[in-house]
């Protein structure tokens, strides 16, 4: 008699325990979501860019979930805000890693990725980034875990320089560039490429980044009577230089750094942007071919400008989903090996082919501002 209540309690406990266990391990294991991390700037100075990245990745996750997920499992996008600060990005990254993601889409600015690099090497989880600095995928930085989903600065510049040397073939080109690392490296690639085709700059002028009065340099260039002027500047400086160049009567064709391909530049330069030639990673968000995709991003984010910033994040997420669909049990390490061998994935931005150092995107389109739109140049190829 005295044992009865005890036994009943034991049975109850066992029943309760096993059902709890079942609840924890059974159905949950089958439906556990695949986690994809995202470190991006949702607030602060880089929020305009960061929110585009988030919108792209979110659309990819929503689409795959609407289609039933991957092998019956849903995808959960874990977004952490880096508040536009490299230090906060490291904290955001560590927080995401503790939740066990299969891969992480990271910030689009080189200094942020460099700040994350040690944590990425420790975590051993693939990191995608659209940062264009050459260092980002260097072995000592990436440890083989960083995958670049945008064309590197060096590749894009080389492409534009090649177009100038082989298609535009100026007789008497001149160049105006910022007297910092950015301007000097751009000018260096231009100078070397043109020299290889027997063309030399008739004049080289420099300016301090952020200077608002370029009339002295532009007047000097005008006197040289060049037949083409290359300008290497960030968007805000380009927005000062181009109207001043046109006002002062420098009416020759202009070729500009990738900063010229931004809506920011068009907004500042206005109609004087017309005819300026530059280079862009992808026309996603602007071209006819991507109109449907652009529509979908806009549906969820009505006022957001849509560009390759969103499409590269969208493509990165789909790259992961594509591999997981074929290898559902892939660990982060396995995923890395499969990514490194990935070829021929066709994204919204363009084709992806990863090289040995993790650079997966190599497209660079030579484009010209025509009637407020970027129009690809024929004969520039990809």
């Amino acid at each position, binding site marked *: 008699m005295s044992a009865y209540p005890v036994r009943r309690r034991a049975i109850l406990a066992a029943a309760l325990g096993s059902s709890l266990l079942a609840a924890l391990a059974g159905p949950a294991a089958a439906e556990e979501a695949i986690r994809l991390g995202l470190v991006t700037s949702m607030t602060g*100075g880089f929020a*305009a860019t960061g929110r585009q990245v988030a919108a792209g990745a979110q659309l990819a996750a929503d689409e795959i979930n609407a289609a039933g997920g991957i092998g019956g499992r849903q995808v959960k996008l874990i977004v952490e805000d880096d508040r536009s600060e490299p230090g906060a990005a490291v904290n955001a990254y560590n927080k995401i890693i503790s939740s066990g993601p299969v891969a992480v889409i990271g910030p689009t600015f080189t200094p942020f990725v460099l700040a994350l690099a040690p944590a990425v090497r420790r975590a051993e989880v693939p990191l995608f980034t659209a940062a264009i600095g050459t260092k980002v995928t260097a072995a000592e930085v990436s440890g083989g875990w960083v995958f670049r989903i945008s064309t590197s600065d060096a590749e894009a510049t080389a492409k534009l320089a090649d177009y100038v040397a082989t298609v535009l073939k100026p007789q008497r080109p001149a160049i105006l560039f910022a*007297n910092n690392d950015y301007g000097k490296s751009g000018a260096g690639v231009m100078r070397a490429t043109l020299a290889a085709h027997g063309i030399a700059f008739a004049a080289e*002028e*420099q*300016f*301090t980044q*952020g*200077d*608002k*009065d370029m*009339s*002295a*340099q532009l*007047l*000097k260039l005008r*006197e040289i009577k060049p037949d083409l002027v290359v300008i290497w500047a960030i968007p*805000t400086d380009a*927005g*000062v230089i181009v*109207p*001043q160049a046109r*006002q*002062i*009567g420098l009416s020759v064709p202009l070729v500009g750094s990738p900063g010229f391909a931004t809506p*920011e530049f068009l*907004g*500042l*330069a*206005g109609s*004087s942007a017309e005819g300026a030639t530059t280079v862009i990673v992808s026309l996603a968000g602007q071209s006819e071919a991507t109109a449907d995709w652009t529509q979908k991003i806009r549906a969820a984010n009505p006022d957001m400008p849509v560009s390759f910033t969103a499409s590269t994040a969208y493509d990165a997420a789909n790259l992961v989903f594509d591999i997981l669909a074929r290898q559902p049990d892939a660990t982060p390490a396995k995923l890395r090996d499969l990514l490194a061998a990935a070829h021929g994935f066709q994204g919204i931005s363009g084709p992806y082919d990863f090289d040995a150092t993790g650079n997966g995107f190599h497209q660079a389109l030579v484009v010209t501002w025509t009637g407020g739109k970027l129009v690809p140049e024929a004969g520039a190829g990809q």
Partner: protein
Amino acid sequence: MTVSLFLQLVVQGCAIGAIYGLAALGFVLLVKALDVINFAQGEFVVLGGFIVWTLVGAGLPFWLALPGALLIGALVGVVFERVVYRPIRDRDFATHLIGTLAGALILRNLAQHIWGPETHAFTAPFDRWVFDWHSVVINPQYLLILGATVLLVAGYYVFFFHSPTGKVLRAVADSRSTARLLGVHTNRIGALAFALASSTGVLAGVLVAPLFLVDPNVGFTAALKAFVATIIGGWGSFPGALLGGLIVGLAEVFSVQFFPSGYKDATAFVILIVFLLLRPQGLFPGRAGERA
């Protein structure tokens, strides 16, 4: 060098010089009226651009937005005097320096908070229209800036030396305690001086916006060159500020024709050093004997 290039360089140099001079006027005004250096003067220039950009963006015609911006600028000046300057006005030079610098940082962050970090285009009133005069390109905005600066210099000169209020301002600069003993409302005078200085800065911001864009970072550059113009012109002289600005502007434009353009920004400071060595009192020594 052809005649037309020479003339173009002179036009360009004078235009840029007038901008430096205009930005310097606010500096000079406070030196003259209160004997204080205001390092937030450049931020008033930034405010000018953003305020007029906002007003015109809200649908106001430029010629209404301009006085509106000046009025808002004057109010900012009054608040700045009350919050930043008045608590430290009886302290030494170093306190003024750090205090107004702190005020500049507050204004800058406030502007970023309100308007964000982006740069904007602003083209009123001439919409980037330029005209040719004997193959010299003239931007009407240059004429507007030059005209406004010359008028302001003349206006301030007359105000300070030939109006009763101006004389009171100078008396306060000389000795606040004496002025107060003689029945001057020194608080009111301080507020007036800051209102004038900040709306002068705002005017500069409005007038340079079509050339330099509405950029939150323009304040530092503007203040630096204006400071050089003030020293070259003679500390606390209105005509000196304009002349100092013109010298810096012309030197910058001409130097690029003869030296590598990477050194353009150094030109202003080379001139500054030359002046400090050879004529430290500047072109029109101001404070020393109030000769201007």
